[in-house]
């Protein structure tokens, strides 16, 4: 592997090659925090998982499409769950909450399954090592037995043989088709910038619906970023939500709690993300 030798710094970021997939990373994080897999503190692990993915990107790791998507699926699930925690604690009633719980259970189940296979893989490795100490008797047939073998029937002309060789030498399993991601590239969206935009519109005191706030969003990524920005702002208690009926319009109101609030106050986590997003834009 073209990795530089791991510096002695702690954490998982420096030992990327030790992990063989997202579950592996998650399990590593869980055991690092000495957490029981069945009751992992999601927030802690989520933060580190996201950090791990960023580290991968910074190191310029080339990802196969489906590997990257697996990481993203898990990261998204963890983020969802974390987002659920940001909301005020309430009864689990609506469909989204139940879906979140299902997602969590599925993630746990998959993680448990992976853990089991990882464990038996370890057992198998031990057995293979142990068995490698026994060498089977596998000696050339004694000449007088070899002489007993029936005379070979050979009907191939050199040309037929060459055709056979050509067929045999043709790669059967060509490299798995790689789907380019370039065309999917969307400009990175900064949550901080979106928070700034939302703040500017709400500061005047007129409540706006979420629908109105995202009316000019255009790309889905911007909608998501604005939603995440709102969650962060809600946590910072600069906005409040009102919803008259389930699935009805969500009204967002500036609480004016913090006069000196600015998007710079956003949690460090999203700040990091934004920074990284900017770097990408500059490249």
């Amino acid at each position, binding site marked *: 592997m073209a990795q530089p030798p791991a510096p002695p710094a702690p954490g998982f970021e420096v030992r990327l090659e*030790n992990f*063989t*997939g*997202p*579950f*592996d990373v998650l399990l590593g994080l869980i055991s690092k925090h000495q957490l029981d897999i069945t009751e992992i503190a999601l927030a802690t692990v989520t933060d580190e998982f996201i950090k791990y993915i960023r580290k991968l990107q910074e190191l310029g790791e080339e990802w*196969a499409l*489906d*590997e990257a998507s*697996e990481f993203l699926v*898990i990261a998204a699930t963890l983020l969802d769950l974390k987002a659920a925690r940001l909301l005020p604690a309430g009864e689990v009633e609506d469909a989204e909450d139940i879906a979140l719980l299902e997602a969590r259970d*599925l993630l746990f*189940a*998959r993680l*448990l*399954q*992976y*853990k*089991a*296979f*990882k*464990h*038996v*893989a*370890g*057992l*198998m*490795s031990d*057995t*293979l*090592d*142990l*068995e*490698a*100490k*026994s*060498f*089977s*008797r*596998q*000696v050339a*047939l*004694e000449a007088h*037995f070899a002489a007993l073998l029936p005379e070979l029937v050979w009907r191939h002309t050199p040309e037929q043989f060459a055709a056979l060789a050509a067929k045999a030498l043709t790669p059967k*399993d060509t490299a*798995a088709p790689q789907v380019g991601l370039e065309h999917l590239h969307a400009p990175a969206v900064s949550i901080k910038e979106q928070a700034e935009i939302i703040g500017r519109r709400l500061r005047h005191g007129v409540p706006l619906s979420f629908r109105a706030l995202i009316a000019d969003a255009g790309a889905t990524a911007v909608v998501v970023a604005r939603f995440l920005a709102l969650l962060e702002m809600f946590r910072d208690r600069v906005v409040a939500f009102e919803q008259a009926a389930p699935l009805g319009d969500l009204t967002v109101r500036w609480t004016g709690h913090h006069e000196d609030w600015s998007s710079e106050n956003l949690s460090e986590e999203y700040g990091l993300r934004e920074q990284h997003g900017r770097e990408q834009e500059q490249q």
Partner: protein
Amino acid sequence: MSEATQTPDGHAGLEARPGGVRAALEAVLMVVDQPATSEELAAVLDVTVAVVEELLAGLQREYGGYTVKAPDVDAVGFAVASAAPRGFELRNVAGGWRIYSRADFADVVGRFVLDGQTSRLTQAALETLAVIAYRQPVSRARVSAIRGVNVDSVVRTLTQRGLVEDAGNDPESGSVLYRTTSYFLERMGIASVAELPALSPHLPGLDGIEEFYDAGRM
């Protein structure tokens, strides 16, 4: 060979030759280059499978250094065995019998037999092999789902190394299914995959998950 009398319980007077049927069995084991089943051995020696299996068990004990004394074993041609274990052993792997050097001497033998030595499997290869072993026949997509990463190149390596093989196509999805080979059993030193340690103790309450995968993934 001294006499050529045909005896009822042995091919062409095996009993009359030095060492009897037991020695004939040993002679055949010397040229076996993949595990030979009791049935194959019984057929070539012209004795019953029960007799061969008794002989095999006797040889196994004898090579291990146990003194063989059971009267029924004596009856089919056993002498009193040496008390010291031999440098080789007879093992029942991958459904058949084969001679192996004793593991105690791996370091010494390893210096002579360089070629048969295989490099160790990577963590990714081991995990993939484990999933295939426990879920066979299984598609690559299914293995990917369990491991969370693409396994195409790892499966290719395992196939090249003879540990897994193509087991036909899935009737529904048409995707290639994989299973472990008898070489895998040999390398694991087991007679069949049923001897793999149970997965369930490592897998609490997983019973329902299979369906979930099948619904969501394939």
